[in-house]
């Protein structure tokens, strides 16, 4: 069997690895979304200690590099707890923390962008705290949050590339490995970049469209 790496073989190998980039992105976005929603609820809570805790969380994960969060999850957690995490589990933990902090911040911004009168009016209607959120605040905030949330999904997909550093084989790691064998760096990384672009660009466009539509409605 010939191990010659032709253009076609390189491309197919990259595509196989792309599956894991997509899977990891979805995992990060789903878990990050759930955790981010809880953190956002804490951030807008009327109780001060809860707000403070969530502020610390967001400040830490927004203010430190994703790469370091991956190292902490992969090397740090396994040393402290004496367990060996697989690269996939470590990447899931780190990307969930990273994604949830940014989504919590984006969504909090959307909630706080609503006029105070919305809260006051729903109070006047006799709604309790959670009823206010459920029926008045969140439905309106969701509309504002769609564009930046989709935009952030692009950051998540790009962020999964760093999971390659702790040994998770997705698109970037596959590209590095193929480059090590073939030494065709320009070709391999251009192809990998093109695949990332095809994943991310439609989302970027969608995010821009939604934002434009929202701006037009506002005028």
């Amino acid at each position, binding site marked *: 069997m010939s191990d010659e790496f032709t253009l076609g073989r390189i491309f197919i190998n990259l595509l196989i690895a792309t599956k894991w980039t997509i899977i990891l992105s979805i995992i990060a976005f789903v878990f990050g979304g759930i955790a981010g929603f809880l953190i956002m609820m804490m951030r807008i809570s009327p109780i001060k200690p809860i707000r403070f805790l969530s502020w610390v969380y967001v400040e830490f994960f927004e203010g430190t590099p994703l790469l370091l969060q991956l190292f*902490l999850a992969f090397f740090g957690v396994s040393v402290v707890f004496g367990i060996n995490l697989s690269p996939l589990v470590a990447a899931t933990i780190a990307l969930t923390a990273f994604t949830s902090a940014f989504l919590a911040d984006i969504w909090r911004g959307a909630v706080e962008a609503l006029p105070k009168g919305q809260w006051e009016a729903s109070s006047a209607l006799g709604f309790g705290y959670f009823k206010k959120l459920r029926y008045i605040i969140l439905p309106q905030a969701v509309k504002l949050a769609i564009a930046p949330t989709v935009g952030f999904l692009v950051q998540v997909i790009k962020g999964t590339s760093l999971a390659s550093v702790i040994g998770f084989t997705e698109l970037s790691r596959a590209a590095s490995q193929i480059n090590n064998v073939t030494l065709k760096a320009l070709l391999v990384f251009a192809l990998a970049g093109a695949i990332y672009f095809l994943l991310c660009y439609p989302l970027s466009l969608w995010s821009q469209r939604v934002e434009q539509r929202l701006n037009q409605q506002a005028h």
Partner: protein
Amino acid sequence: MGYAFDFSVIRDNIGLFVAGALLTFRVSLIAIAFGLILGIIGALFRTSGNRILNAVTLAYVEVIRNTPFLIQLFFIFFGLPKLGIRLNAEQAAILSLAINFGAYSTEIVRAGVESIPKGQIEAAMALGFKPLKIFRYIILTPALSNIYTALTGQVILAVLFTSVVSQIATEDLTFAGDFLNSRTFRSFEIYFTVCLFYLAIVWIIKGFAYWIERRFFEFAKYSRR
């Protein structure tokens, strides 16, 4: 949990962290300065009205913004030597960071330029402002004040991104952590400390940005909404 935390490894090697932090700081500063120049040129091209310049710049912006920095870094570090361009790790790191920051700042600066209504300049002319004063007070200051928050946020993201350059053996803060980890295996203590260093850098930038905003843009705030 039977793990005993031992931060003495940090104390004993503090010089390594500081040296790494200084390199992170230097690489960030140079890359952001060059990136900002790229961004201003990019914004000029995007608003020039010249279709080709606009299309080329837009392609640059979208390609960079929709691909991971790691791939850009590897493309430059491993790819450019194939074209006969030899770069050491630090040069490759600065080049790719500047190109990356340039794309993001192009769009931010463009938004600033476009945020100044023509009527505002015409009104200043009608009031008899001299051209230099118009540029300084009517265009530059409000435009900067409009994009200031976005630009600061992007600077912070860029500094955090510099951690990735450790992967091509640039001896930055993250690399210092990796180096120490491979010798002592005090992974948690080391990486947590490195995180705190980055957090401190981010807070210093935030504080500095806040001071500049107070000092220079306070009076221009009316134009923000």
